[in-house]
């Protein structure tokens, strides 16, 4: 039987966690808004895929990880890097292509890396990083470690062969991997139901004898709880899990793509925004009497300042030295 004090303590940590998650989601939201501005000003180039709308997925799931666990994602990974603790300065500087970026300005938006935080990238070929995650899980098991590897990918990646090759092997080899499918309904301009015979991604787990869970990706607490279950399965039983997290992308596929148009209506986007994961958690914290408007504004002001600072840092940072063109092609 839990004592009153113990109960209070655990409530307190829960509250702290929720405050942290709120801050992280807000940080990502403000960061991406600034990135959009900088892109419009030509300070960021190439492809830039924003995470706005999906914040609860990275924040909720990464809150379930240990510092020695591994994380890997696709090209839509700004939010995952930030939630993993990569500094806003280093991420923004990378988007600006600067030497102080987390990939020294050589990777850019699609290739964020931070080996210290075991953030293993940032990969641009749809599905291409899914077997990398299994390989990292293989290395963990090989060394008899108890870490896990968390892998993010979009629902459209489920249609590509290597996803299936990997899920089969992850199950056969019993690898400690959490496959987190961020189902935001669209692959670029294509609605999933137009190109997938079965639209419940979790269904695929049956073919690979794998545990699976369907999660509301607009509820950061639900994402956190489901990921904790999956992580426990991986850490203690070395069983992989397929999580399908239903979320939504507010912006266009990339900064060069339209927000809506032939493939989805403005109304749909507006309607989805009513499920906003940040407002959702903010409301709960208010209802729980943990946070008031002033408190919320304070958090917002703090993260806005952090993002402003990141932009200043990125702008003030130098480009890589020309000699960097030829470095890191091969390791010594």
């Amino acid at each position, binding site marked *: 039987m839990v004592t009153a004090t113990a109960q209070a303590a655990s409530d307190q940590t829960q509250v702290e966690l929720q405050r942290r998650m709120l801050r992280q989601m807000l940080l990502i939201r403000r960061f991406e808004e600034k990135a959009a501005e900088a892109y419009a000003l030509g300070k960021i180039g190439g492809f830039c895929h924003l995470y706005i709308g999906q914040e609860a997925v990275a924040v909720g799931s990464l809150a379930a990880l240990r510092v020695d666990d591994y994380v890997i994602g696709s090209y839509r990974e700004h939010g995952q890097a930030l939630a993993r603790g990569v500094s806003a300065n280093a991420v923004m500087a990378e988007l600006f292509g600067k030497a102080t970026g987390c990939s020294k300005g050589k990777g*850019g*938006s699609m290739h964020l890396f931070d080996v210290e935080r075991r953030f293993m990238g940032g990969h641009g070929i749809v599905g291409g990083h899914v077997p990398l995650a299994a390989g990292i899980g293989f290395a963990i098991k090989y060394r008899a470690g108890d870490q896990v590897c968390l892998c993010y990918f979009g629902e459209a990646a489920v249609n590509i062969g290597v996803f299936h090759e990997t899920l089969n092997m992850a199950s056969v080899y019993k690898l400690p991997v959490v496959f987190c499918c961020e189902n935001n309904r669209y692959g670029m301009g294509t609605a999933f139901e137009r190109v997938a015979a079965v639209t419940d991604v979790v269904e695929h787990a049956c073919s690979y004898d794998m545990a699976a869970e369907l999660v509301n990706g607009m509820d950061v607490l639900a994402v956190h709880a489901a990921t904790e279950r999956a992580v426990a399965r991986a850490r203690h039983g070395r069983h992989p899990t397929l999580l399908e997290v239903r979320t939504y992308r507010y912006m266009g596929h990339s900064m060069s793509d339209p927000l809506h148009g032939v493939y989805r209506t403005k109304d749909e986007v507006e309607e989805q925004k009513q499920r906003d994961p940040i407002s959702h958690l903010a409301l709960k914290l208010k209802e729980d009497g943990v946070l008031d408007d002033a408190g919320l504004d304070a958090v917002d002001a703090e993260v806005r300042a952090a993002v402003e600072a990141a932009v200043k840092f990125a702008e003030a940072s130098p480009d890589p030295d020309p000699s960097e063109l030829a470095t890191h092609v091969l390791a010594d």
Partner: protein
Amino acid sequence: MPTLTYRDALNQALREEMQRDAGVFLMGEEVGVYQGAYKVSRGLLEEFGPMRVVDTPIAELGFAGIGVGAAMAGLRPVIEFMTWNFAVLALDQIVNSAAKVLYESGGQIPVPIVFRGPNGAALQLAAQHSQSWEAWLSHIPGLKVVAPATPADAKGLLKSAIRDNNPVIVLEGEMLYNTKGDVPEGEHLVPIGKADTKRAGRDVTLICHSKTVAVALKAAEQLAEQEGVSADVLDLRSLRPLDEAAILASVATTNRAVVVEEGWPHCGIGAQVVDVIQREAFDQLDAPVLRVTQADVPMPYNKQLERLAKPSPEKVVAAARRVLYLD
């Protein structure tokens, strides 16, 4: 003659060939409802319907294979890859099915199919999205490979590719789609396997294709202005088969050549061109043939580093000066 963008010239070629032959269809990611990732297929879904303009899942190997199978059964598929970087996933079907079925079957089953899409670097797309695949594709017997540099060649070569009874690779360029040029209306066919002199000259041959044609032309201007050198700019247009006769004819007059390409140096297109020239025109060469290529590194994201990595008019001028012994 109407002026069109490279994009619209490709769109016109597709529309005309689909109107001309009911067996021609377009398949790929985002080609229909989304009107094409780079809008090359704009309006085609509306005109030809979903059976002939087919959106696919992200499954390059699978839909490339579906295209080959449809061609084996007599259709004329045009498979669009959003970019050739992703087509690396489909190479098994291009190389082991499309390029081999005719031979393996003793001539029974031709594979009339076109694989097309943007190739090479655009701007700051970084290592995985900035690669040029012409050297790989041209290595394979059973394929034809073309890389148009102008809107007129884009239309004429795509139309020829669609009518060809073999697998034809059409390498386009994201940076070319918005470029403008005069494009003959209607029945404009550019023969596969014929190079084109984009600027005539006497002193040095600049051999190029696709995006490097503009680079070579700029270099030719600078050479004329700064050095009084007259450069012959030869656009290969087709990389397999290679127009060896046109290459040798130009070198026979200039006795000097520089080969420019967007791809990496090792076993690149330029290496093959050099092989042809030194073998067939050994005694006519007054200097070694030099090459300008992408730096032998994965493409960096940073803008300045990317610029350093790419072929430039300056690099071509420098190479030309060397083969002319002007340094």
